[in-house]
C-alpha cells in the first residue's frame, strides 16, 4: 500500500481549487503539469534503486497524488521493463497507453501501469517519445502488451519495433489517421473509407 494508501487527503488544498465557478476555455496542448503541492519529487528506496541501476535513463521521478511515477528514457525501455518484472517484482503490466502532447518537443508519453502482487504496489512508467521515434516492444517481457501496443498504434500511430503483429486492432485495417491524436478533430473521419465501405456520403 505504498502509493495507494487511503490516508485522509488534505481538505484545505482541495476546496478552493474545485469550487471555482468560472469555466475557463480548455487549454489545448498544455505542457507538463506545473509543479503544485500535489506533485512532489519522488525519493524513496524504489526510485533510488532504479536511479542507481539505470542512472541516465531515469529522467525524473515524481509522485502525483501519492502515486509513484518514473519518467524513463525510451532507449532503455526493455531493460528497465525486464528489471521491473524480475527484480522489483512488478509482475503485472496492468495497462499501457499513450498521451499526446503536440506542443511538446517529445510529442507522446507512453504510460505503463505496473502492479506488483508481491509488494501490493503500483508504479507508473512514463516514456517520452518523439513523433517519429519507434520504441521497442514490451511483448517479450509482458505478453499482455501485445494488444495494448496494437491499440496505441491504432489510435496514436506509434509504431513498436519488434512487435509480432503491428497492425490496427479497433479500427479497420485500411483506415487513415489516428483518432486519439490531438490534431485529429472529434468529427474528423476517414470519409473515403466510410463512403467506400459503408456507402455513406457524409458521416456524423
Amino acid at each position, binding site marked *: 500500500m505504498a502509493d495507494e494508501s487511503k490516508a485522509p*487527503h488534505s481538505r484545505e488544498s482541495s476546496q478552493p481549487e474545485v469550487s471555482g465557478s468560472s*469555466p475557463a476555455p480548455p487549454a489545448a496542448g498544455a505542457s507538463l503539469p506545473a509543479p503544485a503541492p500535489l506533485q512532489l519529487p519522488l525519493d524513496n528506496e524504489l526510485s533510488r534503486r532504479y536511479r542507481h541501476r539505470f542512472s541516465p535513463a531515469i529522467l525524473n521521478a515524481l509522485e*502525483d497524488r501519492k502515486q509513484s511515477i518514473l519518467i524513463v528514457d525510451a532507449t532503455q525501455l526493455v531493460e528497465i521493463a525486464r528489471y521491473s518484472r524480475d527484480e522489483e517484482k512488478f509482475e503485472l503490466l*496492468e495497462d499501457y497507453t499513450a498521451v499526446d502532447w503536440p506542443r511538446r518537443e517529445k510529442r507522446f508519453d507512453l504510460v505503463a501501469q505496473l502492479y506488483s502482487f508481491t509488494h501490493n504496489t503500483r508504479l507508473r512508467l512514463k516514456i517520452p517519445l518523439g513523433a517519429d521515434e519507434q520504441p521497442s516492444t514490451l511483448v517479450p517481457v509482458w505478453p*499482455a502488451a501485445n494488444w495494448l501496443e496494437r491499440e496505441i498504434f491504432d489510435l496514436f500511430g506509434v509504431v513498436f519495433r519488434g512487435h509480432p503483429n503491428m497492425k490496427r*486492432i479497433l479500427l479497420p485495417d485500411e483506415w487513415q489517421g489516428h483518432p486519439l491524436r490531438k490534431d485529429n478533430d*472529434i468529427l474528423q473521419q476517414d470519409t473515403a473509407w466510410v463512403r467506400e465501405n459503408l456507402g455513406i456520403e457524409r458521416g456524423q
Partner: protein
Amino acid sequence: MNILADTVHENAAQKTETVLGADELVINMGPQHPSTHGVLRVKLKLDGERVVGSECVIGYVHRGVEKIAENRTYQQFAPYVDRMDYVSAVSNGLGYCEAVEKLLVVEAPPRARVIRTILAELQRIASHLLWLGTHALDIGTLTPLFYCMREREEILKIFEKYCGARLTTHAFRIGGLQYEAYDILEKDVERFCNSFEGRIQQYSDLLTSNSIWIGRTRNVGLLNSADCIALGASGPILRASGVKWDLRKSMPYAAYDQYKFEISVGMRGDTYDRYMVRLEEMRQSRLICLQAIENIPAGPIMARVGRVLKPPAGEVYHAIEGPKGILGYYIVSDGSIQPYRIRIRPPSFINLQALDKTIRGHLVTDVVAIIGTLDIVLGEVDR
C-alpha cells in the same frame, strides 16, 4: 494467408506456420454468432475439429469513448462509461467517479460510500447471473437462464427504484450520490439477499455435480496463474487459476475495508473452476450486501465539490475490481474543465487476449464454452 500472425504468446517462431496443411481449414466464427455474446469475430484455424490457431477480429462497435471524453466535461462524460460494459454500469460508474474524486482530492462521504458498495455488489451479482445464464445456454442447458434472469430482474428493480434506470444507471455522481436511498432500500436488498441464498443453491444443484456440465467444463480452457499474469487476465479468471487476489482486499476502495468476505479461488484454472469461483463470488457479494445494510451511516451523500469541476493539473490512475476484472481509469488533467485524456483499462479487452492461448488444442464446441467463460462484453472490448 497471414491469418495467424496474432498468435504470439511464446515467440515469433510461430509466425512461420502460415501455410495450411492438408487437413487444415480456416473458418470464421462470428461476428453474427449467438455464442460470441456480441460482435466478436474469431478466425479459427482447424485441424479436423481441433483448433490449432486463432485470431480475434474486434472493433465492430468501437465508438471512440476515450476521444469523446476529451470533448466533454467531467460530469458530462460520466454517463458514457455506463455504456462500455453495459451489464455492469454501476461498477463502471463507481470506478470513474472514484478516479475523478482522486484527481480532485476529495472523498465521498461515508454514507455515499456504503450505498455505492451495496449497489456495486448487487451489480456484481447481476453481472455474474447474466454470465451464468448465457454461459449455461451456450453449453446446452436452457433452464439456468430463466432462473438467472428472474433473480437479475429483482436487482434491476432495486436499481430502478433507486435511480429510475435499469441498465445504464448513472447511479453515482462525482463526489457522492445524487439520490438519497429510497425509504425501503434496505428492506428490498434484505429480501433479495434472503431469497438469493436458496436460489444460488438451485443453480448449484442444477450444474455443480451434473455430469454433462462437468464433462463440458472440466479441463476445458486451462489457464494457469503464470499465464494469467503474463497475459494480464484478471478477475475471476485469475482467481480460478489459484491466485488469491482481489482489489477489494488488497487496495480497498468505497467501503470494502469495513466488511468481511472471502476471496474465492480455484485450483486448476479451467472452465469449471471459473464457474465455481463466480458462484462463490455471488455468495460473498450477498454477504457484503447483508453486512452493509445493517449499518448505513447517516450524514450527507455529497462531498463539497463545485458545480464546475476543474481538477488541478496532474494525473491519477484508479482501478476497482469490476465483475470482470481490473477496471482502471487513468485520467490526465490540464487544469481545465475537460479531461485532457481519459484512458480506460477494460478488463474484457485484456481478458479476451487470453482466448488464443486458451482454445488451442480444443474442439470447436469448446471454443463456445471458453468464450463464455472469459465473460466478455463487446461494448467494453471495443469501447
